């Protein structure tokens, strides 16, 4: 994802902005799969994510990072795409566990996708099935370093290659916005 950003060509105000963005990450914690259960110990007193300046937020509009915690069915992926597109730039995605990497144990399921970064720009993957809270905290530290160095550019990549992402989304989902009896 970040191979096209070779040298640090950010302007001064972007560097300052990245300092603030790295030290205050609000997350939209989208509970797609089993990884959601690893988040409460990460947020509460055992591991205390707030010491990194991170915290849960109620809506995608307010959030900076979208956590995809586990397998994504096609049905969920549609909702994740809406949520991602509602977020304000700059925004980051962290994929949890092997299901978002290559499908995991659901590699042959008719309902779950196999590779998240075909549909949305993932900045960071966490290996494991599921990753333990230590791994999650460690990866948040890595995400903070990436933002400080200006390497977490997934949102820019998504804007520049929107056609490619849209084509992949259409190929697997047929239609992103759903019209049925529950969504007029």
């Amino acid at each position, binding site marked *: 994802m970040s191979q096209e950003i070779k040298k640090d060509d950010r302007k001064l105000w972007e560097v300052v902005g990245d300092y603030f963005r790295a030290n205050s990450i609000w997350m939209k914690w989208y509970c797609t799969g089993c990884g959601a259960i690893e988040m409460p110990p990460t947020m509460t*007193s055992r591991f205390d994510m707030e010491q990194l300046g991170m915290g849960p937020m*109620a809506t995608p509009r*307010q959030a900076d990072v979208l956590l995809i915690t586990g397998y994504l069915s096609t049905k969920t992926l549609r909702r994740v795409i809406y949520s991602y597109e509602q977020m304000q730039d700059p925004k980051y995605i962290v994929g949890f566990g092997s299901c978002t990497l290559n499908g995991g144990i659901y590699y042959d399921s008719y309902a779950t996708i196999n590779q998240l970064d075909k549909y949305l720009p993932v900045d960071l993957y966490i290996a494991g099935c599921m990753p333990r809270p230590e791994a999650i905290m460690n990866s948040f530290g890595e995400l903070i370093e990436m933002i400080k160095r200006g390497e977490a550019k997934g949102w820019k990549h998504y804007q520049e290659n929107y056609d490619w992402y849209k084509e992949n989304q259409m190929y697997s989902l047929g239609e992103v916005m759903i019209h049925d009896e529950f969504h007029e």
Partner: protein
Amino acid sequence: MTLMNFIYGFLVLIGAFVFQTTLTGINRKITARIQKRRGPKFYQQFIDIFKALSKSSITHGWVYDFGAIMALGGIAATVIFIPVAGFQAFPGLDNVFVISYVLAVGMLGMAMSAAGSGNPWASIGVSRALTNMLAYDIPLMVVVFTLIFINKSGSVADLALLQQGSGVFGWNFIKLPLGGIVAVVALFGMLGKKPFDSFIAPAEIASGPMVEYGGKQLGMMFILHELMTFIEVSLILNMFFGGGETLVIYLIKYALLYTFTNIVSQVMPRFKIDQAVLFFFRVPLGMALLQGILVIFLGWGY
């Protein structure tokens, strides 16, 4: 009114923002320690606000944008009228009624902006916030009228000044204990601290009026929230806890009062909005009326 008045006003505004934001950060740390966590840095609130201001933002129509600016402008204008330790940017304009009315501009701007975003959660949040305001305002106003009746003055600075000189026993909180308790309970409602935080309720209505705010507007809302907290705590401090003879005493008292509300709110559950209204109309309103009767007909508290 000279240029110096405006410069003083600006200084009050900046000072209020910096002090209250630092205090909020320290209180986040205190909250974390209550929950046996390490907690964020004490300047985390500044980072959060500047981060929000550094993000992109969208618009949901001009009502939304205009409402946000009107809210921030109204609240910032109110801060300038607040007397801080005998210091006033515009002397003589610190009447309780002036402050209440200017504060309403900001409140209505926020309600307008949130409703203009078109999100149903925002409408629910705004209606709950206004209901909550109705609930805490009536008992508080009864007590404030009692205070004005005793002191024959509606000026916040005068009310604060009249309590000074005889130490703790001069405070209206001690002289009118029932009314003082009502005022502190109403402060919880004003600040949206638990148990009266049903209008933000993140897990229930997705942070209510704030639901559609993101990026720069969210940063403005955070600044607004800090300034509003300053106004509310300062009003109660000036009217019931004697204000401050010097700036240092004022700020220490302010920090203690705000930290007290924060600590108490950490061990509270949340009222539903109808429970909150019933509570305010039963207990604090009853206490406020009783206080008024004691003061006006029996002459207690003079």
